């Protein structure tokens, strides 16, 4: 019995609960300490909370948000820039809009690597996502799964595909999806602007809010907070409807 239990726990895809249940040095086998393949997110506060010190590359990251995850994309800009050096594809599957190429270029992302895929239906979306994850030619895969429900087995298929490669795999899903369980390595929710809530992560602390404050940003960093401070003095409201 014990042997069998050990074997199951040793499996990389066995989910173990909260870290505090396991006292002492015995770190869960699935906590991926052996695997330092994480990619720094470029946000110091977030990196500190993530188990591997960055985005895990051996599984999917699920990001739940309102509005198709439009605002959440800024989280991944520093990672995209880092991944540009690899010279592999950065695939956008079913993006709600088109990423603005000049901005990407200005951010140091090689736009020649950006591939946009527009599948026609749910089936094709899953297929394309899995293909991109399985092929070893992608450094990042961003997939907007849309409002539909996905079964656990479908998501697990994507998780296994992501585990087989070493690409950054991000699935954007609506907020409602957090009621259902998912096999992702990391599940996050964008609750507010600049506030990320970690729903779960493999072998790491969970249910924590991470505040991505502008002060802790790396210099020349995202989009999100680089807007100049709007001083009250020059807030001459434009004549709306004038």
């Amino acid at each position, binding site marked *: 019995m014990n042997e069998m239990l050990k074997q199951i726990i040793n499996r990389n895809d066995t989910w173990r609960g909260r870290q505090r249940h396991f006292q002492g040095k015995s770190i869960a086998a699935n906590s991926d300490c052996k695997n330092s393949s994480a990619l720094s997110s470029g946000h110091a506060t977030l990196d500190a909370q993530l188990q591997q010190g960055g985005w895990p590359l051996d599984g999917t990251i699920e990001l739940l948000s*309102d*509005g198709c995850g*439009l*605002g959440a*994309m*800024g*989280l991944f*800009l520093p990672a995209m820039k880092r991944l540009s050096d*690899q010279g*592999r*594809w950065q*695939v956008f599957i079913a*993006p*709600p*809009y*088109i*990423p*603005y*190429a*000049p*901005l*990407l*270029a*200005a*951010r140091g992302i090689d*736009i*020649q690597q*950006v*591939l*946009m*895929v*527009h*599948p*026609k239906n749910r089936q*094709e979306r899953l*297929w*394309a996502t899995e*293909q*991109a994850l399985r*092929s*070893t*030619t*992608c*450094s990042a895969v961003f997939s907007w799964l849309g409002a539909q429900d996905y079964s656990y087995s479908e998501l697990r298929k994507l998780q296994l595909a992501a585990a087989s490669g*070493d690409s950054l795999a991000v699935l954007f899903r609506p907020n409602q999806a957090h009621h259902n369980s998912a096999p992702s390595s990391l599940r996050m929710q964008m609750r*507010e*602007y*600049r506030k990320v809530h970690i729903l779960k992560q493999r072998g790491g602390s969970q249910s924590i809010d991470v505040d991505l404050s502008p002060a802790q940003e790396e210099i020349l960093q*995202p*989009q*999100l907070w*680089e*807007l100049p401070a*709007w001083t009250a003095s020059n*807030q001459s*409201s*434009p004549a*709306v*409807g*004038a």
Partner: protein
Amino acid sequence: MSLWLCLRFNQLPLECLSHCEQQPVAVMAGQRIIRINDCAAALGIRQGMSAATVRALADEEPIRLLERDKQAEQRCLQQLCCWAYSITPTLYTWQFDCVQLEIEGCLSLFQGLDTLLAQVTTGISSRGYCAHHGLAPTPKAAWLLSFAPRVTAMAIQQPLEQRLSPLPLSLLEEFAATVNSLRRAGLQTVGDVLALPPASLGRRCGKAFTHFLQQLIGQREDLQADYCPPSSFSDEYWFGYEVKTNNELTPAVQQLLQSFCNFLRNTQLQTNEINWRLIGSDKKLQNICVRSASSNSDWKNWYQLTCLRFEQLHLTNSVEGLVLACPQLQPGQQGSIDLFNPHNQREPLTALLDRLRNRLGLQAVKKLGCRDEHLPEFAMLASNEDPGNEHSTSQHCAQRPFWLMPQPEKLRHHGKHLYWNGVLSMVCGPERIEDNWWQEPVSRDYFIMVDKGGQHYWVFRDRLTQQWYVHGVFA
């Protein structure tokens, strides 16, 4: 010193028309039987019989009498040459049913004569042919020896003239008159002729015959134009029954692609487009074009892409035949992935592109490009070709949104407030963009606005129409 292998396809007139073994088949030319299969031979049918005799012998047995088709023979011979090109580059067709291969130069490639001959034998039998072999230092001797018993025909250790001697002169059909007069003089075999002094033989039999004899024993050069592989490829597969489901096409696809890719490898050509033609039972054609972003000659790759296309195929009619054609071939270039790539990339980048495009369609996969334009919607383009990149990074882009809407969307406004999923408030602006005066003048004031949830939008006021629009979303 060279070594020639002559493959004489004695049954070619029959084999190019029918591979049937269950039923007697005979091929006729000018009302005379010239070739028969084993079933027909068992009935007592022999070469040279007339059609009437054959019918009498066959009696109740259903026998197929086919008219000889010389064009089909030539086509088959060309296909055999195409295959034999994978063995040696020096080869040509000889008579109407022979292929001459120079194999001295490729013996070390095949690690010896035995393995080479074994490969030749399996190659021929897998194509449904049988051939007589002849092995000699000159092509003409190899051809003559293909008529000899196999022991003599393949015994290259023995002296050539000794092997040639017992062969009858009647094999030399092109010198029928000379051979006839020699026979009247009591000379029956090649050995008899070779024993005569060449000078007197030349006076008696003419120049052409002595040239032939000299070429036969290697005293004179025998130069022939080498076979050139064709510049395009086309091959077909006939099922022999009606195919109704996609899965049944698979074996045919595999076989055609394998022979296609062998052809490509032998000729060192590549292609990035292949055409499948499904021939329906009502003789209607259905064309399917499979493209790949990179030229390649790997059949598994093409098979994968073809399967993706065939998965979406709905067979309206049953299919009788499948044709693989490739009109355009380019000289091969070997692409390779970086051996020392740390990211365990196992296939070239274009492989994913091909898979996605073949399954989802060409339009569904796009790449991004930048243009040096002032208007945001013109400054970028998404196209399925490789877009050019003429962008010079400017600091302007720092104020640009991550997402640009395909069309600016109108904003509702109430009093002093703008609404887009809730009320918007100003963060920064304006930035004026005016351009395109030569065509359709555009003048906009761009602002960055934020909604209650903290989401930033790129909003502009069209100065010409006094309308508010949202154009982009910040990430």
